[in-house]
C-alpha cells in the first residue's frame, strides 16, 4: 500500500541532486502519538514495577513518609522538580532515540519515517537537541497546536523545531513490488489471439494489469471477477482478439502479464 508523498530535492556540494520523499503531516502525527503511547507505557510500567517492589518488601509506609518529608522540605519546588523530570524524560526520549537510531524513534520507525538534516546527512546530537527543545513550543499544552499550523503552512511539513535545526522528516519505505507469477503455461504461450492482444498493449495498460494482479486477493470475490472481466474485455476489444469464452479472465491476465514482459525483453 502506498502513501502519497511529496518530494524534496537536495543538492550535494558535488551538485548531485537527491530526491527524498517528505513525510506527511498525518504520518508524523501518528508517529508522535505512537511515541507518546510508548512513553506512557514505559512510565506506567516503571511505576507499576516500583510499586510492586515497594509493596513486596513492605516498605510502603517508608516511601509515603519519604514523599511527605520531601514535600515539607521542598514545598512548591517539588512540583517544579517533577515538571523538570517530565520534560527531561519527554525531550530526552526523542533526543536520544533520534541520535542513536539515526533520526528514528519507535513511533517514527512504525511509520517508516526518519529525520535527516536538510543537506541529506544524518542528524547530529546538537541538531536533535535543538529540534526537540523547540518541541516545547510546538506542543503547547501537549496538543501540538503551533506545530500543526507551522507544518500546515510549510511546504516541506516542517515544524518550528525542524526549521530551527535545519532538519527534514523523510519517508524511508520503498514501494512494494507485487508478487507475480513467473511461469507461463506452454499451451498458452503460443496462443495467437493472446499474442495479438499483448502486441497491442501499451505500458499504461500493462500497469493496470499488473496492479490488478498484485491486489486481486484483497478484492471482494464479486468485484474481483468484475474487474478482471472488464480489463480483459477492454483489452480484447482494443486488439480485436477473440479469446475463448471458457477461459478465466484472471488466468488470461496472468499470461498477458508474463507475455508482455517477454515482449519488452525482445525490444
Amino acid at each position, binding site marked *: 500500500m502506498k502513501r*502519497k508523498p511529496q*518530494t524534496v530535492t537536495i543538492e550535494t*556540494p558535488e551538485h548531485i541532486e537527491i530526491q527524498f520523499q517528505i513525510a*506527511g503531516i498525518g*504520518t508524523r502525527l501518528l508517529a508522535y502519538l505512537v511515541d507518546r503511547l510508548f512513553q506512557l507505557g514505559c512510565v506506567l510500567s516503571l511505576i507499576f514495577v516500583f510499586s510492586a517492589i515497594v509493596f513486596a518488601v513492605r516498605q510502603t509506609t517508608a516511601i509515603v513518609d519519604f514523599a511527605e518529608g520531601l514535600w515539607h522540605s521542598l514545598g512548591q519546588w517539588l512540583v517544579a522538580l517533577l515538571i523538570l523530570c517530565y520534560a527531561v524524560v519527554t525531550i530526552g526520549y526523542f533526543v536520544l532515540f533520534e541520535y542513536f537510531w539515526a533520526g528514528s524513534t519507535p513511533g517514527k520507525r512504525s511509520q517508516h519515517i526518519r529525520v535527516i538534516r536538510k543537506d541529506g546527512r544524518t542528524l547530529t546530537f546538537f541538531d536533535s537537541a535543538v529540534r526537540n527543545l523547540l518541541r516545547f513550543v510546538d506542543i503547547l499544552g501537549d496538543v501540538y497546536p503551533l506545530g500543526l499550523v507551522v507544518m500546515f503552512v510549510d511546504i516541506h511539513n516542517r515544524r518550528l523545531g525542524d526549521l530551527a535545526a535545519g532538519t527534514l522528516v523523510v519517508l524511508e519505505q520503498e514501494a512494494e513490488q507485487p508478487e507475480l507469477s513467473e511461469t507461463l503455461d506452454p499451451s498458452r504461450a503460443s496462443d495467437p489471439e493472446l499474442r495479438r492482444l499483448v502486441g497491442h498493449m501499451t505500458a499504461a495498460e500493462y500497469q*493496470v494489469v499488473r496492479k490488478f494482479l498484485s491486489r486481486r486477493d484483497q478484492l471482494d470475490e464479486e468485484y474481483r471477477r468484475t474487474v478482471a472481466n472488464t480489463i480483459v474485455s477492454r483489452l480484447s476489444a*482494443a486488439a480485436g482478439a477473440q479469446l475463448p469464452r471458457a477461459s478465466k479472465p484472471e488466468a488470461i491476465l496472468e499470461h498477458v502479464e508474463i507475455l508482455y514482459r517477454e515482449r519488452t525483453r525482445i525490444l
Partner: protein
Amino acid sequence: MERETTETVYTLVIIGLRDDRARRRVAAALSRVTTQMSADRILERLGKLPWTLTRRATRKRAIRLTRLLESLGARLQVIPPLPEDLALDVGETQIMPSAELLTETQVANATQFIQPPEESYSAESLPERPAMEARPAAVTPASAMPPEPRKMERALSRERETSAPESAPMEPLTIGGILDRTFQIGRAYFWKLAAIVVIPGLIAGAISLAGLLLGSVAGLALSSVLDWPAWVWVVGTIILIPVVVVGIAIFVFLPQAALIHAISEICLGRDFRVTDAFRAVLQKLLPFVLTSLLFMLALFGTMLATGLSGGVLGALYGFTASWVLPRSLVWLAWLPAILLIPVFIAVPLYAWVKWSLFGQALILEDAAYGEALQRSWRLLSGRAGTQWYTSHVTRLGILLLVFAVIQVSVSFLFQGPAVLFTYATPWQMTGKVATHVLSFCGNVVIGVFSATCTVLFYYDLRNRKEGLDLMLLAGENVGPRGE
C-alpha cells in the same frame, strides 16, 4: 566520508525524426515503455522537438533506448555520449515501463525543453560526498546542466511538490497516507472547501441577527412576552417550526452534503465550483436529512437495547448471586455487572462507527435510508491485512481518534486567544463575540478536515474491496477511450 558509487546517468533527447511514419513508430514504441503518457499525447509531443525523454537513464537503459529509437527512425542526442565499445554489452536488460521516462511535470510544463548540457557527468570522478543512509528516490546530475536550466529544474521540483495533491491517483492508502492526503487536500483546496461551510453559516448568522432585531423591536412594542395575544403565539409557532426545520436542513445538512460531493470530486481528479457542489446535492437533501434521523434513531435504539439487556442481565445475575453467595461475599455479585459496563458502551460505539459512512453512500451512490446504513455496514466489514487491528472498523476508529486529538489542537488554537482576550481586556461583550467567531472558525477547520478524511477513507475502502481505482484506470487507460 564515503566515495560516490552511483552509476553514471544519461540524458536522452530526441532531436529529429526521419519522416511521419517514423514518428508514429516511435510514438507506439514509447507508449509501451512509459507509464506517464498515452500514445496520442506522445505522438502530439513528437511534433514539437527537441524532447528530453529522460535525464536519469542508466547506461544499459540508455543504450537500449537509443538502439530501439534509432532503429525506428529517430535521431537522438545522448549526454554524455555513450561509449562505442560498450554499446553491445546490454545482455538481458529489459526496457520495463516506468515513471522514470517522461514525468508528468515534463508533460505538463512548457519549461521542459531544457537545453542539452554541454558537459559530461561521471560519478566516478567525483570527490568525497557525505554519507547518506536514507535511500534516495532518484539521482539526477545537476552539475551536468548550465545554471539557467538548473533554475528551471528547481522550479520543476517545486512544482512537483505543490502539485502532488491534485495529480495523485486513487489507490489504497495506509492510515498515515489517508491523513497525509487529508492535509494535502486541505492545503490545496482549503478556501474553497471552507466556503462551502462558511457561506450557509454566514447566512444563518445574518438571519439569526435579523430575528433578534425583530424580536427586540417586538419586545419594545409589547410590554412583556406574556402580554402577547394568543394569535401571535399561534402564528409564531406555525411559522417558526417549519422555519427551524428548513433552517437546520439548509444550514446544517446542506454544507455537509456539499462537502462530501466536493471532496469526492477532488478525489476523482476533477475540479469543482462551490455553487456546483450545492446544486449537485440539493435533490439529495431531503433523503440525507431523513437518513440522518434514521441513523440517530438506529443508534438510540442500539443504545437502549444494549443498555436494557445489560441492565436486566446484570440485575438478574446480581440477585441470583446474592442468594447463592455468603453474606460477606455479596459485593462480588455486582462485580460482573460493573465489568460488563464497557461492553455495553462498546456495542453502540461499534454500531456508530459501522454506520458512519452512510452520508458518503447516500451522496455518492444514491443509496438512501436503510440501504445507506446497510451499505456503510457492508463497506466497513473485513480487514485490510491479516492482523486484527487492520480491520476496517479499527482503522476508522483510529482515524476518528486521531481527529479527536486534532480537534483538541484546533480548539486550543482558536479558543485560547479568545479566552485570553476575554480575561485580559475589560470588553466582556467583545470577548464573547470573539469567542463565538473563533469557535465558528475552529468548527469550519475541523469540519473541512474531518469530511475530507472520511471521504478519503470511503474511497480507500472502495479501492481495497471493490477495485474502484482499477476500474477507473481501466476505463481511462485500457482499450477504447470514453467508455
